[in-house]
């Protein structure tokens, strides 16, 4: 790459073309170089100068030296040593030096002597008598005797003491003598009293030291007397002067001097006491003007701004200024005395002006006030139709309207009536009259209390009503006598009093028709209170109206006063204010006094947003929630809502029905069915007929005997014994479906109770039992089921026939709560003795068996339970009773409750089991201490485990269930007249065989009176009803 470059000439050519100056040729001389050059030059110059200076100095030095050498005479040390020969001789040197010293001293002494001499001469020449002139001598001229010579010395004092007076000359002896004299004098003084009364500080002007009379004059204390040297002729003169003045002062006593002084500063304290304070200045006072400097305003404003800044201005202010400020700041209102006196003077002034009123003026005033009144009256006049009046008139019209229809004899309107309504009744006129009165009253009070005219109207009407009521009550008494008379004449048709006869009769009519009723005592009391309140209010209003009138009058008076010319606006303002204040105070007092009896009837009700009435607690809660901005939690709210709901439901519930409206439902059902009765057991019993048929009943009866035979000869008896009670109960129980109306309710009760007692699977059993048995089994049922499993294991498939099967909800469900826990897949008992078939419902069967057989099975028990004992019966009584009537008692027990009172239940265990039966037989139902005992067998104790193991079934009476059921079934069937469905054969059979087998083992001795087999046959409806009646009668 080649550089483009131009030569100097080319560049210059270009530069010329561009209008630039040509290139600077030659070496570049920069400013720095110039500076350097300059510096160099400067330095050179300086160096040159310095050199010149040095040379000059040298020359000057040498010149000096030369001059010095020239001025010094003799020889120098060096020169001497050079020139003399006895240089080394110390003796000579010292000699020489000594002589030199002597010479010098002599010269100095001579000079000094000469000087002193000169000084002496000059002094001696000057000092004379003139020199002493002006000096003070501290003694009296008289003290110096004629021709006596005394030596005076300067008085002993500090330098500063007598600065202005100059020095003082004294003679010591003379001053000593003076002091002695003074002390003597002081000693004489000491006997005199110290206090003269006139030598106090305030008079003498200087403070005395404490107990000054004891002070001794210590030094030479010359008095003021003395003289000055050189002024000889003047000294005595002053002395004379002094003595003269002192003697003059001494001539006047100190007392007089005091008097003079006091007179000079006296002030007159007298003033005109009779002068009355006035709002205005008197002529004399008015003439006193305050000088107002023009500067004042300016200075004041400036003062307000920067008070502390300009002291100069403050000084320049007028002296009178503070005075003026005082006057302006005086608070007249605060000064009560002044205020009072001013008011007095004003009153006098107004009196004068009132006197001045001309008759014309008075007339005019009267006319004015009259016209005002007329205005008011015109305002009040005429018919006033307000909301309230309309409402009231409507009310009365509505109420009364039927009356004329009933009473055809409408009386001619009375002349007194002022109503506009054509339907004439005496009620309205009274009201209208009252209203008119009220309005006029209101009109009077309208000026002051127009704002409460509305509610006042309301109250007035109330009052008038109550008043009319009160009046009418009086009249009623009269009227009643009349009506009595009339009623005696025509009893059936109650005579109606004629409206035309007057207000009383009208009221009587109204009363008769129930439009108007005389209240109870409570209402009367209420009315009385209301009337009282109304009266109070009206009184208050009247008072207020009066007050308002007075106010207006006083205002008018004020206006009158205002017209007076002498009454300045300021005064008027002040007076008015004062007056207003007073008036207000009075008003308040009056009101307070009036309201003293006022007892407002306050009843606060709280209602929430949904319209429910709240009690105070709830209201407070609501308020609190609103205040804090938070409400109760969800749960609490729900709870409360539920409570409210419940309350509502309770309120809405019929008093003649259950909460679920059972009675109505029954009635509806009866209506729908068209029958006089209801079958209540439908829901629970609809399965029963299918399970048991009449044929099965027959079957059972037969099979029981047959099935039981193989096991043992005692079996039939067992059966019968087990039958005995249940059978009767079934009959009773099944006959209950209400045929007889009076019994119906009882029946429902019984059923209901049963339902309570035996819910679920037990229901069916209970249906077949008497109430007593139900109760009994209930008490025994608490014992764990599955007692007698042994039997069950034998007949695994018997359960198929059991009625309990129908109730089985699911094959896997546990049988009952109090069942003993068993392994549902592995059952020991079943394993050992299972015959085959399904054993799912073994437990079920067992339960049923045990339950059904328990009561009958107990009969072999030696233990009995006695119930319904009197609480006073003791254990001893029981023991004695049963031992005497039945047999030896092994163990007896009476149950007590927690408080130690007998529950009325006793358990007795006999030594011999047969005694139990005897006891029941003999003593059951017999009254002991007024209460009939109820004796039963105690429920059998639970079986032992080994029993079950053995597989022996204790609960033989299996078949009896079926026999019982069968019998009941038969009775139901016969009663209902229904064809029984087919029985399940196998179940029935299995049941019988099993029961027969089991019962064989269960060897008990039945003590109960045996029932014959014939009783198992179906009963007729009549029989059943009869039984029911007897049962009910017993119960």
């Amino acid at each position, binding site marked *: 790459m080649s550089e*483009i470059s131009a030569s100097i000439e080319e560049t210059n050519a*270009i530069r010329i073309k561009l209008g630039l100056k040509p290139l600077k040729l030659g070496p570049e001389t920069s400013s720095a170089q110039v500076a350097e050059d300059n510096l160099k030059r400067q330095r050179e110059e300086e160096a040159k100068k310095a050199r010149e200076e040095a040379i000059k100095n040298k020359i000057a030095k040498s010149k000096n030296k030369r001059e010095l050498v020239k001025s010094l005479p003799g020889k120098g040390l060096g020169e001497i040593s050079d020139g003399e020969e006895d240089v080394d001789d110390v003796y000579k040197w010292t000699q020489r030096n000594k002589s030199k010293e002597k010479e010098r001293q002599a010269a100095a002494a001579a000079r000094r002597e000469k000087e002193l001499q000169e000084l002496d001469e000059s002094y001696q020449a000057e000092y004379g008598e003139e020199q002493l002139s002006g000096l003070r001598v501290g003694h009296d001229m008289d003290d110096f005797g004629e021709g006596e010579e005394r030596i005076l010395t300067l008085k002993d004092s500090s330098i500063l003491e007598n600065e202005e007076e100059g020095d003082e000359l004294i003679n010591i002896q003379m001053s000593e003598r003076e002091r002695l004299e003074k002390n003597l004098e002081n000693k004489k003084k000491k006997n005199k009293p110290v206090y003269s009364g006139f030598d106090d500080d305030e008079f003498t002007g200087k403070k005395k030291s404490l107990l000054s009379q004891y002070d001794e004059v210590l030094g030479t204390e010359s008095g003021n007397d003395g003289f000055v040297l050189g002024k000889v002729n003047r000294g005595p003169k002053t002395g004379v002067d002094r003595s003269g003045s002192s003697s003059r002062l001494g001539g006047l006593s100190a007392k007089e001097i005091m008097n003079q002084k006091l007179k000079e500063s006296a002030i007159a304290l007298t003033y005109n006491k009779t002068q009355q304070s006035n709002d205005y200045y008197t002529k004399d006072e008015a003439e006193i003007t305050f000088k107002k400097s023009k500067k004042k305003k300016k200075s004041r404003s400036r003062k307000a701004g920067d008070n502390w800044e300009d002291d100069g201005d403050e000084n320049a202010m007028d002296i009178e200024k503070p005075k003026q400020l005082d006057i302006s700041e005086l608070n007249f209102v605060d000064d009560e005395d002044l205020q009072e006196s001013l008011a007095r003077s004003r009153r006098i002034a107004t009196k004068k002006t009132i006197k001045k009123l001309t008759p014309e003026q008075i007339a005019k005033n009267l006319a004015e006030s009259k016209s005002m009144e007329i205005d008011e009256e015109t305002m009040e006049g005429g018919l006033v139709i307000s909301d309230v009046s309309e409402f009231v008139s409507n009310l009365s019209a509505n109420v009364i309207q039927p009356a004329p229809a009933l009473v055809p004899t409408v009386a001619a309107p009375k002349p007194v009536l002022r109503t506009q309504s054509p339907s004439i009744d005496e009620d309205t006129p009274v009201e209208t009259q009252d209203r008119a009165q009220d309005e006029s009253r209101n009109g009077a009070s309208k000026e002051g209390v127009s704002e409460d005219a509305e509610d006042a109207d309301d109250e007035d009407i109330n009052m008038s009503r109550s008043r009319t009521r009160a009046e009418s009550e009086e009249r009623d008494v009269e009227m009643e006598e009349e009506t009595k008379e009339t009623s005696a004449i025509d009893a059936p048709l109650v005579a109606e009093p004629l409206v035309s006869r007057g207000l009383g009769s009208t009221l009587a009519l109204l009363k008769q028709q129930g439009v108007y009723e005389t209240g109870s005592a409570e209402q009367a009391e209420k009315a009385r209170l209301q009337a009282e309140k109304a009266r109070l209010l009206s009184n208050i209003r009247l008072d207020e109206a009066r007050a308002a009138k007075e106010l207006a009058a006083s205002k008018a008076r004020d206006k009158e006063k205002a017209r007076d010319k002498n009454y300045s606006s300021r005064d008027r303002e002040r007076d008015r204010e004062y007056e207003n204040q007073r008036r207000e105070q009075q008003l308040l007092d009056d009101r307070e006094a009036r309201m003293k009896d006022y007892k407002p009837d306050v009843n606060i009700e709280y209602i929430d947003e949904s319209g429910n009435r709240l009690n105070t607690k709830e209201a407070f809660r609501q308020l609190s929630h609103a205040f804090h901005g938070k409400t109760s939690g969800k749960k609490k709210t729900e709870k409360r809502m539920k409570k409210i709901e419940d309350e509502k439901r309770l309120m809405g519930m019929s008093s003649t029905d259950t909460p679920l409206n059972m009675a109505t439902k029954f009635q509806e059902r009866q209506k729908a069915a068209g029958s006089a009765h209801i079958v209540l057991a439908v829901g629970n019993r609809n399965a029963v007929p299918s399970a048991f048929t009449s044929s099965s009943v027959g079957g059972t009866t037969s099979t029981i005997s047959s099935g039981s035979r193989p096991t043992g000869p005692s079996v039939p008896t067992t059966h019968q014994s087990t039958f005995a009670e249940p059978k009767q109960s079934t009959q009773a129980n099944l006959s209950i479906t209400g045929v007889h109306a009076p019994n119906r309710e009882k029946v429902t009760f019984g059923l209901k109770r049963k339902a309570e007692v035996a819910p679920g699977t037990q229901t069916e059993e209970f249906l077949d039992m008497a109430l007593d048995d139900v109760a009994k089994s209930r008490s025994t049922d608490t014992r764990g089921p599955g007692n007698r499993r042994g039997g069950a294991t034998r007949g695994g498939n018997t359960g198929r026939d059991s009625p309990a099967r129908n109730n089985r909800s699911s094959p896997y469900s546990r049988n009952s709560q109090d069942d003993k826990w068993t392994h549902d897949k592995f059952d020991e008992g079943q394993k050992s003795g299972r015959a085959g078939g399904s054993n799912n419902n073994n437990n079920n069967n067992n339960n049923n068996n045990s339950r059904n057989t328990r009561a009958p099975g107990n009969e072999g028990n030696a233990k009995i339970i006695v119930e319904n004992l009197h609480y006073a019966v003791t254990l001893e009584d029981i023991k004695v009773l049963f031992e005497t009537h039945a047999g030896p008692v092994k163990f007896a027990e009476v149950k007590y409750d927690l408080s130690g009172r007998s529950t009325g239940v006793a358990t007795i265990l006999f030594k011999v089991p047969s005694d139990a039966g005897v006891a029941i037989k003999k003593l059951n139902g017999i009254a002991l201490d007024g209460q009939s005992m109820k004796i039963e067998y105690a429920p059998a104790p639970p079986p032992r485990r080994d029993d079950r193991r053995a597989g022996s079934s204790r609960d033989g009476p299996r078949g009896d269930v079926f026999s019982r059921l069968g019998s009941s079934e038969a009775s139901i069937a016969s009663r209902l007249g229904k064809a029984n469905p087919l029985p399940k054969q196998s179940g029935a059979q299995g049941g019988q065989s099993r029961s027969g087998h089991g019962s064989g083992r269960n060897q008990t001795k039945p003590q109960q009176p045996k029932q014959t087999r014939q009783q198992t046959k179906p009963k007729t409806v009549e029989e059943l009803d009869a039984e029911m009646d007897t049962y009910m009668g017993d119960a």
Partner: protein
Amino acid sequence: MIEVVCNDRLGKKVRVKCNGDDTVGDLKKLIAAQTGTNWEKIVLKKWYNVFKDHITLDDYEIHDGMNIELYYN
């Protein structure tokens, strides 16, 4: 007189003779005269300093033999 070398590193390198008290604008004109470009298109830089037209070379301390970068607008 000083001599300044201006190189645009694209193939033009100019050696310009000028005075120290010439402005940058004058220098640009001289360069333009020698290279044949419009002087107003020329930008002179030293690193990131763009020399302004109205300031003299002395003030920018441009001395004899310095290299100046040459750019074009």
